[in-house]
């Protein structure tokens, strides 16, 4: 996986928190998506949303629990359908497979449609080192590529950029007159990317679902760039991760009812492509186009074998948890430093990366549970956050000072006399700080720390019981 910045989570958060214009943009965008989602659920979905979620949850649960079965099934189906298939253990295996393919096709120009897994793998940087020209074709991804940044949201990669930022970026990188009109910027991108498409040797895309029963590759999109990526070049490489399998086509159609609604509030996206078999290259030849599917593991099969953690892989990558998360809304996706930001990223990243470096992500949450509530496949996201915190303590990854404090605390609560003595001292001193609150380093910078009350709960309880008794005796 890419060199990640999750180590610097706290530093990044601080930086992003002070960026007011970023916050305005992120809030506006996430609220917009949430509002559209809610409206669509209310007005346009004939089934009960909760029942749909329940169905989706059970589809994902069965798939992940029996993943090896469906994996073998889809492998057989791919070969039956004439689709080449590779299982890649880690990122470098993906890069090698792609590299070999591109060399054997003497490819130079590569067009890509959105695939988060290729971000995880760091494919673009790798291919560029070998001299391939890789162009992202989803508008958001194209913007990010021009800016040399990472996506800040899994379904809306350029969500953190304002129209004027994009305007300046286009005018600088593409040598055009400045404009911040979204329709003009989109039109420029269309013209430039159309040429790239027509000259492309190879297309690389992700996939939303892979159907075990039929070997169908399902790709969901709005712009048409994925359709061009899979149709125009001779070779189409699908790169996604091992958990994208679903048992049957009707299962895929159920998940398809939830995915676009959850991510953009659309009932269905503009385009859904179902690919079963390669097509003829053109109508004059009997040559077939080639389709190659690469599935990345990168630690996922280990997650699948863990009964408590496997629900993380139910995810269908809709991004709703990011939109809903009060933390994401404040800091945006880049603050997480990970490829997958927001709540789902915080529970996935530590298990795929160095746990020690990315465990802090699980603390960047208020544990309010909004993510679990909105998740269309009912992942227990906030419990998973707690699991990471628990594991982190068990593995003694907590900061030195925290360990010391808890050791002392343990000794205090173990001894009644010391506990009582200390609480009496605090109650005695309490009134002195009643107005200002206690000054605790770091904490008091952001929040008020209430001073101790003038008597302890223990004393209050005794007094209360006494009054109650007196009252009863009257």
């Amino acid at each position, binding site marked *: 996986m890419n060199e990640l910045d999750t180590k610097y989570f706290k530093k990044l958060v601080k930086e992003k928190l002070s960026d007011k214009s970023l916050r305005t943009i992120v809030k506006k965008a996430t609220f917009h998506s949430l509002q559209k989602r809610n409206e669509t659920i209310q007005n346009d979905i004939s089934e009960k949303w909760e029942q749909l979620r329940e169905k989706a949850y059970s589809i994902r649960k069965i798939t992940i629990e029996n993943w090896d079965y469906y994996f073998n099934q889809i492998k057989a189906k791919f070969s039956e359908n004439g689709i080449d298939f590779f299982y890649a253990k880690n990122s470098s295996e993906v890069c090698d497979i792609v590299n070999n393919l591109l060399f054997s096709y003497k490819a130079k120009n590569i067009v890509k449609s959105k695939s988060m897994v290729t971000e995880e793998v760091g494919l673009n940087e790798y291919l560029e080192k070998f001299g391939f020209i890789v162009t992202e074709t989803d508008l958001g991804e194209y913007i990010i590529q021009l800016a040399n940044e990472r996506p800040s949201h899994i379904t809306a990669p350029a969500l953190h950029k304002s129209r004027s930022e994009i305007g300046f970026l286009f005018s600088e990188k593409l040598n055009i007159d400045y404009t911040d009109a979204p329709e003009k910027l989109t039109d420029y991108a269309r013209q430039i990317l159309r040429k790239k498409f027509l000259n492309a040797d190879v297309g690389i895309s992700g996939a939303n679902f892979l159907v075990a029963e039929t070997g169908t590759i399902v790709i969901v999109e709005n712009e048409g760039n994925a359709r061009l990526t899979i149709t125009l070049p001779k070779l189409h490489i699908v790169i996604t991760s091992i958990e994208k399998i679903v048992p049957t086509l009707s299962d895929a*159609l159920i998940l398809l009812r939830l995915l676009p609604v959850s991510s953009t509030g659309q009932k269905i996206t503009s385009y859904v492509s179902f690919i079963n078999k390669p097509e003829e290259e053109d109508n004059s030849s009997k040559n077939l186009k080639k389709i190659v599917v690469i599935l990345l593991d990168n630690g996922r099969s280990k997650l699948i074998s863990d009964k408590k953690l496997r629900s993380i892989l139910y995810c269908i990558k809709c991004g709703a948890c990011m939109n809903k998360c009060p933390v994401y809304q404040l800091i945006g996706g880049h603050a997480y430093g990970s490829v997958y930001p927001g709540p789902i990223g915080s529970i996935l990243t530590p298990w795929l990366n160095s746990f020690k470096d990315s465990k802090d992500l699980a603390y960047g949450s208020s544990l309010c549970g909004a993510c679990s509530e909105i998740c269309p496949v009912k992942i227990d996201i906030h419990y998973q956050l707690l699991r990471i915190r628990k594991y982190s303590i068990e593995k003694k990854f907590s900061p030195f000072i925290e360990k010391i404090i808890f050791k002392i605390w343990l000794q205090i609560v173990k001894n009644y006399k010391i506990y009582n003595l200390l609480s009496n001292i605090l109650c005695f001193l309490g009134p002195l700080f009643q107005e200002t609150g206690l000054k605790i380093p770091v904490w008091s910078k952001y929040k008020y720390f209430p001073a101790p009350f003038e008597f302890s709960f223990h004393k209050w309880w005794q007094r209360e019981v006494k009054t109650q008794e007196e009252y009863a005796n009257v």
Partner: protein
Amino acid sequence: MSKDNLIERFNKEIIKVNGECFVFKNIDDSITQIQSFIEKEKIKKILINDKNEISRSIYVNLKRTTDLIIQAVSEINIKNKDIKEELKDVDLGISYANFLVADTGSVVLTSSEDEPRLLSLLPEFNIVLSTSNQIIEKLEDAIDVIKTEKSVTVITGPSRTADIEKVLITGVHGPKKLIVFIFDK
């Protein structure tokens, strides 16, 4: 759902996604509609899937009444030409649908020699022909076709993006406009 209800539902849904829908009793009316569209959008070159009674009749009628360049997919096939090259300067592609989905206002196209996938994708405008008998209630009703064809594309409205500050723009990499003609005798 009755046929009329299906048409009504389809129409309602496709409007929501910025598509358009016209219902015709006969081919002549549709020709007038296409002609006014050609004029309005300054169309110069048309490619049409002509492997069907309705589309062939439209093709011949258009050939007869306009002096635009109008090609049929079958002609290209016979000449063994590359569809990609042929489509480069086509601004209106006329497709023929397998199904229309009432629930979502979607068009279901299966790829074939007569309906190359690029026909509904590369040109700026896309007109999709169909009859009222082809309207199904839900996408699930097309599941057997999705299972058996090489590839199936479900199209719902024109191509769109909201990647810049969530402002909706129609017409990104695919068609700017999608118009569905339903023939209902």
